[in-house]
């Protein structure tokens, strides 16, 4: 069963990506997490995202295109990336989410992937 682990990060986490004193721990944490998923054979995709300061939100209303500088919602934690994992059930997915570095500072959200077509 496939799940997305959505990585919600605080502003501090986003800034540690480039902070020389913290970037080692930050990237090391995700590299280890990624490696563990691969080793367990559950890794099924995913990507990291640039910070929300580079987000652009687009809405089309009638024939007007509304382009807005910034993320869809201004929340304390922002989407920083996502992993797709293929595991047995929700319990297993929650186990993996708990290991995600963002769970300790921001949050990790688990969502079942909606399988399209005949199953």
């Amino acid at each position: 069963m496939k799940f997305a682990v959505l990585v919600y990060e605080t502003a501090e986490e986003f800034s540690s990506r480039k902070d020389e004193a913290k970037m080692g721990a930050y990237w090391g944490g995700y590299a280890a997490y990624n490696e563990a998923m691969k080793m367990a054979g559950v890794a099924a995709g995913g990507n990291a995202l640039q910070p929300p300061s580079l987000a652009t939100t687009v809405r089309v209303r009638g024939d007007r295109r509304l382009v807005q500088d910034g993320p869809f919602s201004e929340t304390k934690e922002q989407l920083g990336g996502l992993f797709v994992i293929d595991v047995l059930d929700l319990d297993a997915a929650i186990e993996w989410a708990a290991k995600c570095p963002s769970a300790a500072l921001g949050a990790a959200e688990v969502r079942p992937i909606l399988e399209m077509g005949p199953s």
Partner: protein
Amino acid sequence: MLQPVIERVVRESYGRLVAYLASRSRDVQLVEDALSEALIVALKEWPVQGVPDSPEAWLLTVARRRLVDARRKADREEVAWQGVAEMMRSAETVRQEGEFPDERVKLLFVCAHPALDESVRAPLMLSLLFGLTAEEIAGSFLVSSATMGQRLVRAKQRIQGLKLKFDVPEGDRLEERLGSVLDAIYVAYGVSWEEPRESVRGLGEEALQMAEIVVRMFPEEGEGKGLLALILYLKSRDRARRDEWGQYVPLSEQVVDLWDRELILKAENELKSAVRLGKLGRFQWEASIQSVHASRLWTGATDWGSLCVLYDELMHLHCSAGVCVGRAAARGEAFGAREGLRCLAELDEVELQGYQPYWATKGHLLEQAGERDEARNCYQMAIQMAGNEAVREWLRRRLES
């Protein structure tokens, strides 16, 4: 002796240098840093070695070298490197010819990109094309230097992070993108009009230059010429807007001899050639309104009837607070104060609550209609909202009269 030379080079060439370097490296922040380093080197070397024949090409060469060093250090991605490599090649041509292409129009499109917040577009243009600092711009946009600085940094980071293209949009998107460019240029002009400040060299001058860049690049776009005409009309009244004591003088009371005839004639020419292109838009209508006002120079009177017609047309296209209030004022002059007040009554007072010209106009119309007490209340409101002292003082005099 040297300082003025460098200042002149910065004033005249800053935007061209940024545009040229940034359209190849895309990292405007890095480009600006490299340029300011080049200027520091110039301050050290030029007094000793003399000012080079082509100061612009000299600065370009030094800034480019800094840029390449910075790139090496930062070890950025391949794409950026290709840009630098291309820049190295084209820089050779620049050295030989002492000339480099004017690509400021690309910079204008980047500054007014839809992915950048509307509020930062005009400040960004003033910063990147003219080298104005956050401190110099902040006051005109009614924010602190720190806030303006943050906005500019964030916008520059987005330009680099989103890899916004330094080019001229084509096809369907051109009209919309050009519209954003023109809007931002008009905002840049507007802030200088609100608060003419001698200390910062006239911001209106920068807006005028930007409009000229657009017109040179798009001679077939009526709205570009319309905006240029509009700015020229407004600029032609620079000397008449304040009296000898620095007091505000409203348009209807301005001494026409103080208007700059040459600018008015230039504006007339631009507007005529814009209208001939056959694609009317907001700026051409706005310029037409200013053209009617300008003709007082020759006829000695203002044709309020024509202004009413033009305002009606403009309102269909661009229904802003300024246009609605301007229309009410024109109708008040043409058909009597009661008609002006009727137009104002049609507007949503809640939305216009914080709009100073609304209260000033309402006060004026009420005064003419003989409603002195109500007029006083409106002037009081307007005084509280007036952004600059000269206007406040003028309103106070109305209140006391």
